[in-house]
């Protein structure tokens, strides 16, 4: 095994460990805000894995959207719905049994997909700057899904404004 590949393995395992540790904190923490911090750590770990795999664009988008936006949204939701100044912010409510059931179901489904899919490894790195290629693909091959997602987001945006106005 050559040194760069060995380093890639090291990077992968370090980042995977970070993501897993974050996941354990997110599930196990008793305080909901600490669980949110664990989730952020897990998301950063996943972004790190993308970096190790040289998918820089995906990694940065992961940080931008999940760490920068979604986690802020979660923190805001916690802040607006709970008594934040109380000492304990419980991470559970009465529906935890249903939550466990659904989580197991989801885990089983993901596991099935991960095992049954025939993962194709790309032997050679795609040459050149990938961002123009991603842009071109979005505007040609994947135009319809792209527009559908934009419309969905626009609807969400308008809906948020309407709710905020009331």
């Amino acid at each position, binding site marked *: 095994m050559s*040194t760069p590949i060995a380093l890639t393995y090291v990077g992968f395992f370090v980042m995977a460990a970070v993501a897993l540790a974050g996941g354990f904190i997110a599930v196990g923490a008793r305080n909901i805000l600490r669980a949110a911090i664990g989730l*952020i750590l897990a998301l950063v770990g996943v972004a790190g894995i993308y970096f190790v795999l040289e998918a820089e*664009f995906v990694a*940065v988008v992961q940080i931008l959207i999940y760490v920068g936006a979604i986690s*802020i949204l979660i923190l*805001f939701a916690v*802040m607006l719905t709970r008594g934040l100044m109380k000492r304990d912010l419980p991470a559970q409510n009465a529906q935890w049994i249903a939550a466990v059931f659904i989580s197991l179901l989801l885990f089983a489904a993901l596991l099935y997909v991960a095992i049954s899919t025939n993962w194709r490894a790309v032997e050679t790195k795609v040459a050149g700057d990938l*961002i*123009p290629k991603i842009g071109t693909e979005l505007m040609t091959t994947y135009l319809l899904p792209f527009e559908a997602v934009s419309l969905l987001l626009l609807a969400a945006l308008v809906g948020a404004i309407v709710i905020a106005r009331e």
Partner: protein
Amino acid sequence: MDFINNIFTNSYEWIVYWIHSLLAGLNLAKDFENALVAAIMVFLVIIVILLWMVLMVLILIWLERKNAARIQDRVGPNRVGPWGLLQPVADTLKMFIKEDIVPENADRFVHTIAPMIVMMPAVLMFAVIPWGKGMFPVDLNIGILWIVAVASIGTIGVFLGGYGSNNKYSLLGGMRAVAQMVSYEIPQVLTIVPIVLMVGSMSLVKINEAQSGWAGMQWFVFAIPVGPIAFVIYYLSALAEVGRTPFDLPEGESEIVAGYMTEYSGMKWALFYLAEYFNFFIVCTIAATLFLGGWNGPILPGYVWFIGKVYALVLLGMWIRMTWPRFRVDQLMNFAWKVLVPIALVNIVLAGLALPLLKYFGFSV
């Protein structure tokens, strides 16, 4: 002249060569040796960047105090060292020996990690800035996106600082800060779009190279009508995002004590304070890179031009801070959502329409 222009890049090459010659006696495998040298160089570059950052911040703090004094008709720090130049060093020493107070009911863990998280993005952003021709730690092909993404991490730190202190002023300050940072991020990102449109790349190095025409004066701020509008919006929203005075509601001392920093003391407080100056410095470097041509300029070496432009923007920011009163919270939000965002959106459309014209004048490749 070439020697002075390339002094930093040449010394980098020279150090690489020197380490290789040191390792030559060990008879290591070729790719292991290369990886080792690369790792050592990364480590050295990180150390240089950290020292550089600290030096810049010390100068910035001194400059801010002197400037504030001059504008308010005072003398400013003048006791420690010539013209008070060593005042920031004395302040740093003082911060080190201060007691670290954690409020009894604070969430100790959150209270401790918040300043660290606030510090992180500033350090990460320094990694992609081209400081001169060929002087960049990393050339990511997604450079700008990296800066935008990493900057959003700081928001989490501010929020956690506000929450973890278990103090109503801290929490209010934290909420204000998050709302403000999230709002002003949007016009900031929208002003970057015309630049990416013109250059066709997100790499900061490529963006700099695209501005090298007209004997180094073809800066994007001169790309009328798109450039000047984008520059002004970027600069204003950047000032707001780092919480400088017309926009310093998160820590408005006359309303909410010191906002999210209220319960911090000692080195933790110093980290918040440092991060504030790092962020201010970094948004000035990014504005200089995107709109003022980065290291491009006639006659003088690139790094001199770059630092000069950055400090011009820094001084402008200090001038604004000293001469403008603070916004009210509703004015602040209105300004972002009803003024800056619409103008930035129109500017993107304008950039699309004006692209052939800009291409004619050589702004676009």
